[in-house]
């Protein structure tokens, strides 16, 4: 039991240390403001040209709130892949191995702690900006709860993806390219800029089946249209994806560890 208790403590420590950098985190919100303003203009023009009240089941206000959530999620991603890459190359990972702590779990919890702080800051700013641009959205406490419930596994899933990219450092000269591709795929297939409803049917189905939609699109959609069946659907998708990712990572990690023990890291 004690073995498991230390991880939330690690996460808490990470969250607290990130609170200290709040100033730095806040300096990044200028970008958030700008991008949301651009989206407002883009969609305002699009709605006007389409002469529509709703597109894909979203009003202009809902569209902006949807984008506020997806941007808050994407921009709160900690630099996990870079950290893992660094730990692999500097041999810090081998040092971690002699601690009574699992390296992947240690990273998972520090990441979640950091992400929580960054997500809270981002979403507060995004909410303020969108309120200013298009006004508040109708919300309820149960609805908010549904949204919040969809987040932990979404963040965990994104962590696993990043961790996998970072482990690439065992075999690749450089992982920044891979990371760039991963994050771009997450943005586009995850529906960061456009709700999946507005895409051609075949593509929409494909994107929805892939795990990226349950990291970004899922929670954002639940924020705008909270309902329990959708939540259960997303949780199920997230669970399956987490399981698959975890299995892949376990296999890759084992392979990597064999390398560490063979080459001394």
């Amino acid at each position, binding site marked *: 039991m004690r073995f498991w208790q230390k991880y939330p403590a690690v996460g808490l420590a990470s969250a607290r240390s990130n609170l200290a950098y709040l100033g*730095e985190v806040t*300096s*990044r919100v*200028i*970008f958030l403001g*700008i*991008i949301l*303003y*651009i989206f407002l*203009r*883009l969609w305002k*023009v*699009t709605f006007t*040209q*389409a002469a529509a009240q709703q597109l894909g089941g979203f009003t202009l206000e809902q569209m902006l709130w949807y984008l506020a959530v997806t941007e808050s999620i994407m921009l709160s991603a900690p630099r996990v892949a870079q950290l893992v890459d660094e730990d692999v190359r500097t041999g810090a990972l081998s040092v971690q191995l002699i601690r009574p702590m699992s390296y992947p779990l240690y990273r998972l919890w520090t990441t979640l702690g950091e992400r929580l702080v960054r997500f809270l800051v981002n979403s507060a700013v995004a909410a303020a900006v969108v309120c200013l641009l298009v006004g508040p959205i109708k919300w309820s406490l149960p609805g908010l709860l549904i949204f919040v419930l969809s987040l932990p596994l979404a963040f965990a899933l994104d962590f696993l993806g990043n961790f996998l990219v970072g482990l690439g450092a065992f075999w*690749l*000269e*450089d992982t*920044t*390219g*891979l990371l*760039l*591709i991963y994050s*771009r*795929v997450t943005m*586009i297939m995850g529906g960061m*800029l*456009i709700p999946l409803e*507005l*895409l*051609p049917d075949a*593509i929409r189905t494909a994107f929805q089946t892939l795990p990226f939609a349950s990291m970004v699109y899922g929670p954002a959609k639940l924020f705008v249209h909270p309902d329990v069946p959708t939540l259960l659907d997303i949780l199920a998708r997230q669970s399956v994806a987490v399981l698959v990712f975890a299995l892949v990572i376990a296999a890759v990690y084992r392979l990597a560890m064999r390398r560490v023990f063979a080459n001394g890291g």
Partner: protein
Amino acid sequence: MKRISSYLALAASYFQLNLKAQLEYRGAFLSQALAMFLNNIAWVAFWGLFFHRFPVLRGWTMHDFITLWAVVAAGFGLAHSVFGNALLLPSLIARGQLDAWLLYPRAALPHLLLGRMSATACGDAAFGYLVYLAVVKPDLQHFLLFTAFTVSAAMAFVGFSVLTGSLSFYLGNAEALSEQWRFAMITFSTYPATLFEGTVKLLLYTLIPAAFVGYLPVEALRSLSAADAALAVTGSAAILVLGACVFHLGLTRYESGNLMEMRG
């Protein structure tokens, strides 16, 4: 004249050496350049999906949008594959690392900017030219004009990086601020300025001069408008001149050593 050719030869030498140094880690260089190439393709493909649903955006078609991405990416890529240090200027200044460049008998700014090549910028440049040729399929006249605009956009990007980077002379370490400002410029440059109105539109010609690198070149290519072309080039040149002036004013502060990091 002799001076200009001497600097061109210097630039060629640096480009060659930078490339050679990058190729020492061929895998890393190629994977970063390729990743940036694919990244841009992914964005353009994404906008393809958008335009599939909404074919015309205030008179702009998919075709115009791809031209916009091509000219911005090629301009940005050209700028930072030759003058890669432009992006690192804030940290070079804040850490007092200009010293090394000041020991050489060359104009500090151009010499210093040549000192590095960005691998991802090479991917950007390759993407810009290739996608323009492959998707837009221009005639010779359009292609030449396009190439000229990539050069003017590169001037604007270098000038803007220098301008924002030089803030570090005045504000100490202004890395975060100059980065945000640059992000704003890059982000705005990949959207058609027709989306914006009033004050914000004015902003795109002044504080965040994104119109000169993307919007105006595309308008000029669309209608072969000399006025738009002249404005794009003049604006870009103005940014470069302004950036160089702010740098040189800042450099006298550096030389007089008001920076904390310069003690010792």
